[in-house]
């Protein structure tokens, strides 16, 4: 019953998916918004809630170093296409590699398969 499914190669699906991920990471990410994310916005807004000059407080809070990307990054997000390329490849390799190692190291599922 499942022969037709098992015979379908996973390779085209993964290749197409990787191309889509690379396009998003290397091209679409160039158009990313630079405004604070929702967590940063909640912190900024809550800090300025009762401030006498809310406008000035918001400007000051948006410059808080803790809310900015730390300078220790190996690859700055400014080099967007390279960040996308390295990040997509790294997460693919680490994700697939990790589960492959876990599978190969043996366990209940491997044991079931061997029976």
């Amino acid at each position, binding site marked *: *019953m*499942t022969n*037709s*499914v*098992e015979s*379908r190669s*996973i390779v085209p*699906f*993964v290749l197409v*998916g990787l191309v889509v*991920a*690379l396009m*998003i*990471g290397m091209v*679409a*990410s160039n*158009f*990313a*918004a*630079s*405004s*604070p*994310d*929702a*967590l*940063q*916005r*909640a*912190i900024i*807004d*809550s*800090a300025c*809630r009762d401030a006498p000059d809310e406008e000035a407080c918001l400007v000051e809070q948006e410059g808080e170093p*803790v*809310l900015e990307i*730390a*300078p220790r*990054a*190996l*690859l700055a997000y400014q080099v967007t296409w390279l*960040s*996308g390329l390295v*990040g*997509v490849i*790294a*997460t*693919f*390799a*680490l*994700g*697939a590699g*990790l*589960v492959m190692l*876990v*599978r190969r*190291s*043996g*366990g*209940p*599922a491997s044991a079931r398969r061997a029976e």
Partner: protein
Amino acid sequence: MHIPDGLMYPATAVATGVVGAGAVAYALKKSREELDEKRIPVVGLTAAFIFAAQMVTIPVAGGTSTHLLGGAMAGIMFGPWVGTLVVSVVYLVQAIGFADGGITALGANILCMGVLPAVGGYYFFRALTGVLPRTRTSYLGSVAVTSWLSIVAASALASVFIAIGGPLPLAAFPIMIGIHALVGILEAVISTSVVAAVLTTRPDLLANQDRLPEKVPASARGEAA
């Protein structure tokens, strides 16, 4: 929603780090049971896709921006612990290589945006699809609701972590949850689109085979999971 270094009280960072590490270790162990060989490259692909999608921040109302988190989507697609592993890989690469989310906050970020949406989302999705008719609309509607709720729940948990000795006052909780109720809509749209694409092209790769719409032919299904 990535929590940066220096925002949490140190004891909270240590505690969430220990629990987060334990959760990832458990996810590694359980992944053996949830995953077959065929889906290994798809797991890597999903991690890569989520990483790429998180680079694209989209402006929303009120001077804020958002991007996909993908925790619930990964849990629904692969099961709770493989899903946790997928997003943990993303947060690890982001924290170490890109300073997106603090290294001292990695445990908290994995708990908020990985374990909670992937594990909680998986079981919530199963509960929803268990009572709804087995149609494509119900299936994808459940993905959307689960994804939206996962963002709201994740924001509440992140608020708790930051509030314990940290700079987020209790008064900020409604703001935090309110903003995420809005950005959760984007999460629902993207997650549902991705799951719909996989459901159409390769339904055999999805977990929850017993919850697939009845119209998916038996020849297109995978092993029961």
